[in-house]
């Protein structure tokens, strides 16, 4: 009796504390993230200095967090499990890479083209020396591909596992295409050897710090966008679509437009993440389009908690943080650890890590 009472009291206390604690924790994490690039600017001897390696690692994880959030918008909210989001990420990355290659090549052709004895730029490379046009491509390439694919897929009412398989096939096809030298994107080597971005040295501490901050801003912007969407009637329609599409149609909603909107938005966010990833990591190759990458993104979302906004960010952080530690400490056991983690979460935390933090008091 007293135990039950205690439990209710405890539940109430944590329910009250819950939002405040998460808010404090969230602000703390945000403060650390803002401080990191600034600490990187300190001289290397300083005790608080953050190395380029750590900054790049966290910057990379922030890019992955944007992908996880974008995937959660289509999977967690609209119920469309995409196993091909790596393609949109890579397309954004390649668009940025084209600009970076032109920057390092100066007036000549990018090195890999000279190597293939090409004398002229392929038509789709025109204008890529302009940063502005490259930014347009970052949005347009994944956006248009998602629009065309989504238009036909949703018109044909492809859903569930069939949709997932098709997205997986799409990213695989993209990978095979980009592996070819003739495609004009550097074949299996991809793009690397970047030197300058917007006239700045790409490895300079200031540039690194700026890229990191830009990633943080895009992540926060995506989070805000997701928050606004989730609270709008649009977000509720998406949830309804996920749970009972037929009912929604007989309510007079055309699901195709809703799916297409969130699908294209998600692809564009992935493209932006890819564009921020490439200058920080310094390389993009077709391996980014490999199906396993896209599946891993789905693992981040499932682990963090789908259908929530913070869950995917947590998931991307936890998995990638563990990955970078494991691949240094026990490189051969990483995949086993990932598998075990996924099984544990599926068995014990169906709502992901967020479900654990946000345990609702039992009525």
């Amino acid at each position, binding site marked *: 009796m007293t135990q039950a009472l205690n439990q209710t009291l405890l539940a109430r206390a944590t329910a009250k504390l819950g939002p405040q604690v998460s808010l404090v924790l969230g602000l703390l994490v945000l403060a650390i993230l803002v401080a990191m690039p600034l600490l990187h600017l300190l001289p290397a001897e300083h005790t608080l200095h953050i190395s380029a390696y750590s900054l790049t690692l966290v910057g990379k994880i922030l890019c992955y967090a944007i992908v996880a959030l974008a995937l959660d918008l289509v999977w967690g909210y609209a119920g469309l499990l995409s196993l091909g989001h790596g393609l949109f990420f890579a397309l954004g990355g390649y668009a940025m890479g084209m600009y970076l290659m032109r920057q390092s090549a100066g007036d000549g052709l990018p090195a890999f083209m000279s190597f293939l004895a090409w004398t002229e730029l392929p038509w789709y490379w025109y204008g890529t020396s302009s940063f502005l046009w490259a930014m347009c491509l970052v949005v347009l390439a994944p956006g248009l591909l998602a629009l065309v694919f989504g238009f036909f897929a949703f018109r044909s009412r492809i859903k569930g596992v069939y949709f997932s398989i098709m997205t997986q096939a799409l990213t695989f096809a993209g990978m095979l295409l980009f592996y070819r030298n003739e495609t004009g994107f550097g074949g299996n080597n991809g793009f690397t050897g970047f030197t300058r971005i917007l006239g700045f040295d790409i490895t300079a501490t200031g540039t690194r710090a700026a890229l990191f901050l830009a990633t943080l801003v895009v992540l926060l912007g995506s989070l805000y966008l997701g928050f606004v969407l989730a609270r*709008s*009637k649009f977000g509720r329609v998406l949830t*309804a679509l996920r749970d009972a599409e*037929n009912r929604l*149609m*007989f*309510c007079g909603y055309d699901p195709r*437009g809703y799916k297409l909107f969130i699908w294209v938005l998600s692809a564009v966010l992935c493209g932006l993440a890819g564009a921020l990833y490439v200058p920080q990591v310094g390389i993009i190759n077709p391996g980014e389009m490999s199906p396993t990458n896209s599946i891993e993104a789905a693992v981040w979302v499932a682990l963090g908690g789908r259908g929530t906004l913070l869950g995917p960010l947590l998931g991307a952080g936890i998995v990638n943080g563990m990955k970078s530690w494991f691949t240094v400490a026990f490189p051969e056991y990483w995949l086993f650890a990932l598998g075990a983690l996924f099984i544990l979460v599926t068995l014990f935390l169906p709502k992901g890590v967020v479900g654990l933090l946000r345990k609702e008091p039992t009525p």
Partner: protein
Amino acid sequence: MKTTPLAPTLLPAHLIPGAALDTGKTVGKGVNVRHGTLLTLEDINVSFDGFQALTDLTLYIGVGELRCIIGPNGAGKTTLMDVITGKTRPDSGTAYFGEQYDLTTMSEVQIAQAGIGRKFQKPTVFEALSVFENLELAQKANKSVWASLRARLSGEQKERIDEVLQTIRLEASRHRPAGLLSHGQKQFLEIGMLLMQEPHLLLLDEPVAGMTDAETEFTAELFKSLARQHALMVVEHDMGFVGSIADHVSVLHQGRVLAEGSLEQVQNDERVIEVYLGR
């Protein structure tokens, strides 16, 4: 063997209140019901892989009428609903909603927007959303993507939702997730969602299945009060329920309308007794 269904104009005036009121006018927005007929199905044929689900089916539903459809399993009741809501295309025949909507050329979404609401056999609500949000989504409004992105509930819309919450007796559960409701409550919520759509015609597939006696009784009252503003087409097996609500019953058998009339007339019909009611 083929029966001639009653044309609505032959029905007593009190069965088609809308006809008396709305002759020559339109009901609500855009549905023209000049002849008092809201739904016109003529010579509908549907077959699936050689199985004839509906054969030369002819059925008229008048404005504000409450029609019950009965018939043994496999008689084509659900197929009939599928044809009306655009889920199934008839092989031949005409299907008109009012005077101007040709249902055979419209999509499910267009038909829903034109004013036909449908309740499924198994209660289907948006389980993750609250009762209030379920009604909000069903509410008659501009349902395009852009409109939903900017939508804000007006005071008038909130009042309408409160009104329906009261009608379906779910005010106390307004903030509960719909997935936590009892079976009967889900049935009522779905009926409430139909009401929010302000349809001219409601199709209800076995609405009292799984309800308690008290709930069934309440549903009968509810339907009778609705019939004045909406036309209702109810598919039901529960004869007690049919007797308590219907002014007009159609019996379906092997994809045809076997008999039409009051429940009493139908129950005394030789052929109906033979195929359906037994003995």
